């Protein structure tokens, strides 16, 4: 009976899933970035961390003085910008996706527990959520990074620890309304334990919201990672990360070496924009409020 209860909601969810207005370009861009990140070792023409000072500040190929050897030019240490952008995609993808998942799992679990158990558990979790939301996310992340020191692993943990609150809020409010619905009440009558209800009946039904939120959070997290790296508390040099490249790009900014500033930022923007457009589309498709109609 329990299985049937959850299954009822499923067909309507799938029926509303039309691919007509699927955002092709954002999906292609995000897919492209993913592809580049995975196959960076084959795609990258040079070693991203190895440069030659003789070749520093070479402009891109289409500008006077550029060569096909370094298609997008070189930076202040003579490292190939294209290779660094390619490997930078890997950092953004790995940090971005992992941090979103860490925050998502933490926030979803706490949101379900808080919403379903209610009472003092709810009070405790929600007061902590409110407090963490009071701290500006980036300032909080900087503070944490200053304590634990910079590394890719730490950035993931920090971003997860900072951004779980958004999931917790959304998931909790969904659980609150779901608690009153028929299939949960039937499960209670059937003698399911609280944990079984949360795991088997509530969790599958809040996953959609968590996924939509996760897609929208991807952009936020990628910008946060870039900001931390830019400030020197994110990915440690000489690893290629887009935020770090922007920070290095300042060295050539005042003499007009535009490619060191414009290109990494363009990559960040494309990734964030695509994630946002994809998230918007997913939200329209999976939004529980629309689905309940």
């Amino acid at each position, binding site marked *: 009976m329990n299985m049937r209860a959850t299954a009822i909601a499923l067909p309507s969810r799938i029926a509303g899933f039309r691919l007509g207005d699927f955002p092709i370009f954002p999906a292609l861009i995000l897919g492209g970035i993913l592809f580049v990140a995975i196959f960076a070792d084959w795609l990258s023409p040079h070693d991203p961390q190895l440069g030659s000072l003789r070749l520093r500040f070479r402009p891109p190929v289409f500008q006077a003085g550029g060569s096909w050897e370094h298609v997008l030019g070189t930076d202040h240490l003579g490292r190939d910008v294209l290779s660094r952008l390619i490997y930078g995609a890997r950092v953004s993808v790995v940090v971005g996706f992992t941090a979103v998942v860490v925050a998502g799992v933490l926030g979803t679990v706490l949101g379900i527990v808080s919403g379903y158990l209610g009472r003092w558990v709810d009070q405790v979790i929600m007061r902590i959520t409110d407090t963490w939301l009071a701290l500006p996310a980036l300032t909080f992340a*900087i503070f944490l990074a200053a*304590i634990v020191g910079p590394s890719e692993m730490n950035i993931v943990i920090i971003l997860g620890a900072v951004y779980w609150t958004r999931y917790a809020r959304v998931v909790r409010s969904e659980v609150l309304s779901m608690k009153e619905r028929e299939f949960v009440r039937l499960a209670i009558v059937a003698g399911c334990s609280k944990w079984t209800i949360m795991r088997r009946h509530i969790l599958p039904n809040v996953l959609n919201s968590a996924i939509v939120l996760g897609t929208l959070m991807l952009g936020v997290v990628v910008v946060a990672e870039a900001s931390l790296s830019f400030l020197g508390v994110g990915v440690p040099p000489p690893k290629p990360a887009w935020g770090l490249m922007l920070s290095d790009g300042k060295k050539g900014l005042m003499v007009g070496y535009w490619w060191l500033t414009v290109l990494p930022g363009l990559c960040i923007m494309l990734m964030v924009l695509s994630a946002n457009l994809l998230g918007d589309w997913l939200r329209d498709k999976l939004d529980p409020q629309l689905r309940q109609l």
Partner: protein
Amino acid sequence: MRRFVTKRLGYAVLSLFLLSLTIFLLVRVTGDPAALMAEPGASAEQLAAIRKNLGLDQPLWIQYGSFMANFLTGDLGHSFYYNAPVLDLYAARLPYSLLLAAVAMAFSLLIGIPSGILAAVRVGTMWDGAGKVFALLGLSMPSFWIGLVMILFFSVYLGWLPSSGAGTPLHVIMPAFALGWYFAAAHMRLTRSSMLDVLGSEYVKLARLKGLPESLVVAKHAFKNALIPVITLAGINLVIMINVAVVVETVFAWPGIGRLLYEGISFRDFPLVQGIVLLGGSMIVVVNLLVDILYAVVDPRIRLEA
């Protein structure tokens, strides 16, 4: 009303308590606080002195008590890089942060409100679409990148604006724009949705039925009411701007609180970082409280609900 205020006040105090506890515990749980508070390369004696000073040999709750007592009396610790109390440094930078936030807010409202109204009045048209694109770009472009590209264009290529520092009105233009850009998009989105709400309401229909010209309906009846949520958000955002400007202030070497935070990180001046984070969080808790109370004063439904 009194019950509502008491309850909200209680929540705010609880939030401040949790905030200070979080910061206090994070520093102590994640490693040796003495090593964090000490100047890099401090000797063993200096470390011992700091341990004694922080009372690290005492039970945690006593440590927390003195931490809170210090905070409430305005003692936020001592910056070893500047060799000055953190609170003094904060107060010296605050006017710059306020100036930057005020100009950025003016930018964001000047761009956000008219474009939001245009998108709502011409909903579904090209204008609306353009507004959507603008909002998406605003939310997708990192503010520090906008800042860097503006420096490249207006300082390096055109030579119109100074690239860093503060002092003249020209200095504030680019950082304010870079900071305000994101908020302009947020204000535009809210103006649009709020305006759409109001335009569908009964009294706007009545105004139209009376035969008022559409421009007057929009300007006199709809606009004023649609503005309320936008102004509220703007008030909260002003405080948030002061606290999130760290990257923009770093790009433009603007001597505000964000820049102070960045200096704290670069010089491993931990007491400075801790003090700024604590003050920033407290500021936001207090503003949220004030907004809640103001809302209850204006709208009786809210205080009855509580």
